[in-house]
Structure formats: structure tokens, C-alpha cells
């Protein structure tokens, strides 16, 4: 293969394909052939094994009665419901921990990432210790640790009360809550509508400012549409927003919002673990904005909040968003560790189903389908967001 051996002159073409194309074709046929061969081999084995064990394939089992208890669920469920409904309840539980986990981890991670850059030496050291410790210990170990701590909490009667109305006991965390019924939902719906309207108006205002350079305040619209409008609807309909305080009756609590120990432990573990990674992402994002941008903004005499919002954040976000997406995906996938402490997410439900029915292939296919769907939706949303904030180059 050295320069001393010149290549032979190209031969006559075979079916109008060059030497390289033929070689490429050969490799592709070989690799696809091996892949198809392996899959066919596994498939035929599986079919033989399933018929030997008298397991019928297919998703017919989803219509049967599940008979498994699900203690903590967002949706109404009882063991006489079908496997299909059990799966739906499991998916809802997965989403419940993933969505709230993502929101809390983002807030906590951002705070810690900013703390690491603080001029206060003590604060930045503490943040660094937090990040290093949590990143270097397996999440499953942290999860088991939090769960053990939850179980070691006092019984309901001797519950800790960090704040009035909040109880922490081995029954989990009990918070005061506002009961949400359909009248309250109407009011919240108006608020969402107001938010959408506000977003559209703000876009229009910015477009106007781009044309003539005059700044137009957007906050009166925000107050009007997002606060005043729902308040007016609430008063007009006479919706009540009384807070329901939890109370100890006998051995348990009545009223309020209960976060079961399993859910609470999983949430804490996921949020603290992921926030350590998010902190590093936020820190490197802020550090990636060149010094000159800060100096230039200061030289223009911009207010600090305006500078952060309009100069620094847009540039930092470009660095932050792509790795943040993979952290959100990780958090969602890591929520499947719930199976280790008995929080019934979709993996846990699928595992029980698998043990009860023997429908291994279907159960695992369902887990994979659910996670692939969630992963693709998160990637899709974050790619859209990333494209929106990306640098528009000429």
C-alpha cells in the first residue's frame, strides 16, 4: 500500500458499477445478511420456546383483570381494572415524577450553578462540594439511602412539623393543598389563555420595536391578561380558593396533599442527583459568555436585570440547552429506578405484569415504546426550543 505500487488502471465496468461501489455493496449485503440472520435465528428460537412453554404472544392479555395493587396513583385505580389501565396508571406515575423532577432539578441546578460562580468563597466551595459528592455516587445508592431515611422518620403521631401545616413522617410528606374542581379549572384555563395572548402581544410589541426602535413596556399586558383577567373570572363565578389544612386523625392524616414516601424519596433522589449535573451545565454556559460582553453591556450603562436578560442569558442559553436536553432525558430514564423501592411507575407495573402473565416480550416492548415516545417528545421539544434561540447567522 505504498506509493511505489501504482494502482492498476481501472478495469471494464461491471453493470456500470465501479470497484468501490461493488465493494460497498458487498459490505452492505454482508452486514445486513448477518443482522437478518441473527434476528431470524433469535426469532425462530423464541417462537419454539414460547410454544414449548405454552405462552401465547400478543397483546390480548391487556384486556384481562390486572389484580395488582397500585398504592399511590394519580388516576383512579383498583385491582379489578385491566392490565391496560394499570399500564396507563403506571405511565401517569412515571410522568408525574419526571415532569415535577425536571422542573425542580432545573431550578435547584440553576441556583447551585450560579452559587458556584459566586464571589463569596464559602458559597462557591459549598456548591462545588455538593456537585462533586452527588455526581460521584450511583443514583441507585442515593435512592436507597433516601428511602431508608424516609422509613426511619417518626410515625404519623410524632410527625415533624418544619412549617405549620406541613408534616413529615414515615407516611411521607403531607402539604396543605387547594382542592381543584371544575370551577377552579375554568379559572386556571383563563390564566393559560391569558398567557398565550400575552405571548402573542409581546411578539407583536417586539416586532414594532424592531421597526422604530422605541421600547414598549409589555408588563401592563402581563398584569392585565395573566393576573387581572383570571381574578375577574374567579370573582364573577364566585370560585372559592380555600386552603385545605391536613389534620391528624387517629393514626393517619386527613386532607391536604400527600406525597407517599416512595414518591418523595424518588423525587428527592432524582432532583438532587440531576441538579448536580445541571449546575455544571449552567456554570459552563455562563462562563462561556465572553468577558467583553459583560464589559460592553456595563459600558452602555444597561441596568443589571436588563443586561442579564437581554445580553448574557441569550448567549449562555445557546451553550446550555443541548446538554440540558440530555439531562432531562436522563432524569426521565432514571425514574425507572423506582422499581427498586416499590414506587409503581411504568417499569414497575410492567415487571409485575411480566411476573404474573409471563408475557415478557410484550411487557418489555411496552416499556421500550413508552420511553422511546417520551424521549422523542423531549428531544423534539428541546430541538424546537434550541432552533428558536440559536444564533441566526447571515
Amino acid at each position, binding site marked *: *500500500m505504498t*506509493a511505489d505500487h501504482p*494502482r492498476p488502471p481501472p478495469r471494464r465496468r461491471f453493470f456500470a458499477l465501479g470497484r468501490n461501489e461493488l465493494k*460497498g455493496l458487498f*459490505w*452492505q449485503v454482508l*452486514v*445486513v445478511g448477518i*443482522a437478518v440472520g441473527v434476528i431470524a435465528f433469535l426469532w425462530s*428460537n*423464541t417462537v*419454539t*420456546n*414460547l410454544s*414449548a412453554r405454552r405462552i401465547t404472544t400478543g397483546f390480548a392479555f391487556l384486556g384481562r383483570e390486572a389484580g395488582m395493587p397500585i398504592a399511590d396513583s394519580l388516576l383512579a385505580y383498583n385491582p379489578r381494572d385491566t392490565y391496560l389501565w394499570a399500564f396507563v396508571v403506571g405511565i401517569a406515575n412515571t410522568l408525574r415524577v419526571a415532569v415535577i423532577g425536571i422542573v425542580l432539578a432545573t431550578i435547584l441546578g440553576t441556583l447551585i450553578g*450560579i452559587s458556584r*460562580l*459566586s*464571589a*463569596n*468563597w*464559602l*458559597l*462557591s466551595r*459549598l456548591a462545588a462540594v455538593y456537585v*462533586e459528592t452527588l*455526581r*460521584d*455516587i*450511583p*443514583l*441507585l*445508592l*442515593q435512592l*436507597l*439511602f433516601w428511602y*431508608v431515611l424516609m422509613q*426511619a422518620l417518626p410515625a404519623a403521631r410524632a410527625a415533624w412539623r418544619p412549617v405549620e401545616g406541613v408534616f413529615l413522617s414515615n407516611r411521607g410528606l403531607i402539604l396543605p393543598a387547594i382542592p381543584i374542581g371544575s370551577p377552579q379549572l375554568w379559572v386556571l384555563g383563563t390564566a393559560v389563555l391569558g398567557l398565550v395572548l400575552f405571548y402573542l402581544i409581546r411578539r407583536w410589541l417586539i416586532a414594532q420595536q424592531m421597526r422604530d426602535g422605541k421600547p414598549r413596556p409589555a408588563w401592563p399586558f402581563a398584569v392585565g391578561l395573566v393576573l387581572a383577567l383570571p381574578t375577574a373570572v374567579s370573582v364573577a363565578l364566585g370560585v372559592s380558593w380555600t386552603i385545605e389544612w391536613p389534620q391528624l386523625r387517629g393514626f393517619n392524616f386527613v386532607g391536604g396533599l400527600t406525597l407517599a414516601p416512595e414518591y418523595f424519596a424518588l423525587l428527592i433522589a432524582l432532583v438532587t442527583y440531576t441538579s448536580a449535573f445541571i449546575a455544571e451545565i449552567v456554570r459552563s454556559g*455562563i*462562563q462561556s459568555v465572553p*468577558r467583553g460582553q*459583560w464589559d460592553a453591556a456595563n459600558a452602555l450603562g444597561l441596568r*443589571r436585570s436588563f443586561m*442579564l436578560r437581554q445580553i448574557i442569558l441569550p448567549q449562555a442559553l445557546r451553550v446550555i440547552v443541548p446538554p440540558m436536553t440530555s439531562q432531562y432525558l436522563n432524569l426521565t*430514564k432514571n425514574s*425507572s*429506578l423506582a*422499581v*427498586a423501592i416499590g414506587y409503581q411507575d411504568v*417499569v414497575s407495573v410492567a*415487571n409485575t405484569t411480566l411476573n404474573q402473565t409471563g408475557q*415478557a*416480550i410484550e411487557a*418489555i416492548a411496552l*416499556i*421500550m415504546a413508552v*420511553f*422511546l415516545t417520551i*424521549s*422523542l417528545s423531549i428531544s423534539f421539544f428541546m430541538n424546537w426550543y434550541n432552533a428558536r434561540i440559536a444564533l441566526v447567522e447571515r
Partner: protein
Amino acid sequence: MTAITDIPEAPRAARRPQMGNPVLRWLRKNLFSSIPNSILTVVLLALLAKGMFSFVQWGIANAVWLTSANDSSACRAARGVGACWAIIPEKYRFILFGTYPFDEQWRPALSVVLFIALYYLSTRRALWRRELVYLWIGALALISVLMWGGVFGLSFVSQDRWGGLPVTLILATFGLAFGFPLGILVALGRRSKLPAIRSLSVLYVELIRGVPLVSLLFMASVMFPLFMPAGFNIDKLLRAQIAIILFAGAYLAEVIRGGLQAVPRGQYEAADALGLSYWRKHRLIVLPQAIRHVIPPLVNTFIAFFKDTSLVLIIGIFDLLTTAKTAIIDPAWQQFSVEVYIFVAAIYFVFCFAMSRYSRSLEAPTTPK
């Protein structure tokens, strides 16, 4: 959003004569630079002191360090006020080596030492040559002989008696040793011009990365027997190992692909101009550069992956975390799981922290030659 720390000092400040005690100056600059900052420092110090005080009370002052064999009464007396570190000397052999025959436990211990030596040698830049591959093959073969035995007068120990730290290191190291070449092949496949090979690689990477490792491990433990011909059965540990290799391969492939993209086009063209074949071009020219580019993210992937081996707990394989969890099933010691978890967390931490320090040292700018 307070100020950013690494602002280069203005030259004016450097010329001004520095007054006063350097300690006081440091304190004023870093802890008491403004009124809000001083308040923050005081609040943090108070919280830190309170936390440290209760930890020292629990973990050192009131702790029970040693008891006579299998006697947890002293610990139970101190429960709630002091830690029971006595559980560690009581259980450490089981936590570290699982159910490996007690008199033979020097073999897994020696394996752990060999693993650590292997990791250490792999971090030496001077040794990044072809010989390192032979070293890995030799060391892994030696570890297999030590763990299994059956030759050189060592008694045979089947792998369902293995447990603890060696199993964690085996899962991670073998996963890496096989996942890395797999990752290289898949990364090359994903950048190949051949559509069939490219789409197979994309399918593999996206499928594996889209689902949690737990579901792959379930697949390995439940579905694998269905996939194989009747009567053919392989061990649970090996099945988990295969799942981990496939998992590692997909993640490593993405990191390596990033490195391949960073190799300038001219390098490929120069290799083509020399008339090198595809494989020689990649082996001699492209891959060495590509991998050098991505060593820090590769080390970060190794860390993630080392921690993820603990997930085999869910399918009941005796790695370090599972032995720890099993050690506290013993009713006499059941209440002292926090101490055991802290002990195991410290072991994981030492490994991961060493790796992350190493990755950081690689990232530090090196002086150009």
C-alpha cells in the same frame, strides 16, 4: 446572580501597595466584600457549624466503633444518637467479596488490586501505545484465572459465588473492554457512506439510548433465555455483562462520533492520497486523532457507566451495592443500613472522584510543543 469570580484583576489594582495582614485581606475580598455578602457568609457559617456539629455528634462522638463478634446490643443502645460503625468490621468481608469462599478471598482481593493497577497504568500518557492493549488482555486473563481458579492448584469457584467489589469492577471493566471496540465500529458505521450500514448503526444507537438501562437488564434476565435454543443456557452474570456491553457500546459510539467529526477533512484526504485502505486509514490516521480529541468526555462516560453497573441490583446480581443491601438483612443489624450505605458510597466515590480528577487534569490546557 452575583459577580463572576474569575475576572482578571485590573492592572491598577496590582500596582497599588497591598496593605494589612494578608489573611484579613483574603477574608475581606472573598467573604466580606459587601454587606449582603457578609450576611450570606455569616448565615452559611452558622448552618455549616450546626450541620458539622450534629454530624460529629452522630458520626464520631456518640458512635460505636467496635463490638464483639455478632453482638449489636451496644449499637442498638446508641441508636438515634450515634452511628454504628461497628457494622463495617462485622460485615466488610461479605460487602466486599460476597459469598466467595471465605478462605479463598485473597483471590478477589488480589483481582481488585490488579484492576486498580490496570486503571492506573492506563492513565499514563507514556504508555498509550499498542502494548497497552496486550497489557489489558494479559491482566483480564490473569483476573479470570484468579476468580475462576481450577488451574495451578487453585480450587474452582463458579461465578454464582462471586460478589461485591470484584463483580462491580468486572462488569465495568469488561463492559468497557468490549464496549469500546463495539463503539468504534458503530461510530464508523454511523459515518459510513453506505446507507444500509449507516441506518443499522443509527437504529442501534437510538434504540439503546432511548430506553432505560433497567429495561435492557430485564431483557437480559427474562428474555434472553427465550432467544436461545432449548437447552442452551448462559449464566446470569454473563447475560447482564452482555446487556452492559451493548449499552456501553451505544453511548461510547456517540462520544467517538463526536471525535471523528472533529478530525479535519484534510486528514482523510491525505490518507486517501497515500492510497491507504479504509481500515488502515482509520487505524493509522483518523482514530488516533479522533480519540485524543474526546478523552475527557470518554472518561466522563466511563464514570457514568461505572455508577450504572449498580443497576444490576434490580435483577439480583451480587455487585457491591447488592451485597451491601443483603448485609443489612440480618435482623440483628437491620437498623444500621445508613452506615453501610455511607461505607459503600465512599468506595464508589473514591473510584469516580479519581476518574473525574483525571478527566479534569486532561482538560487543563497543555503547553503546545
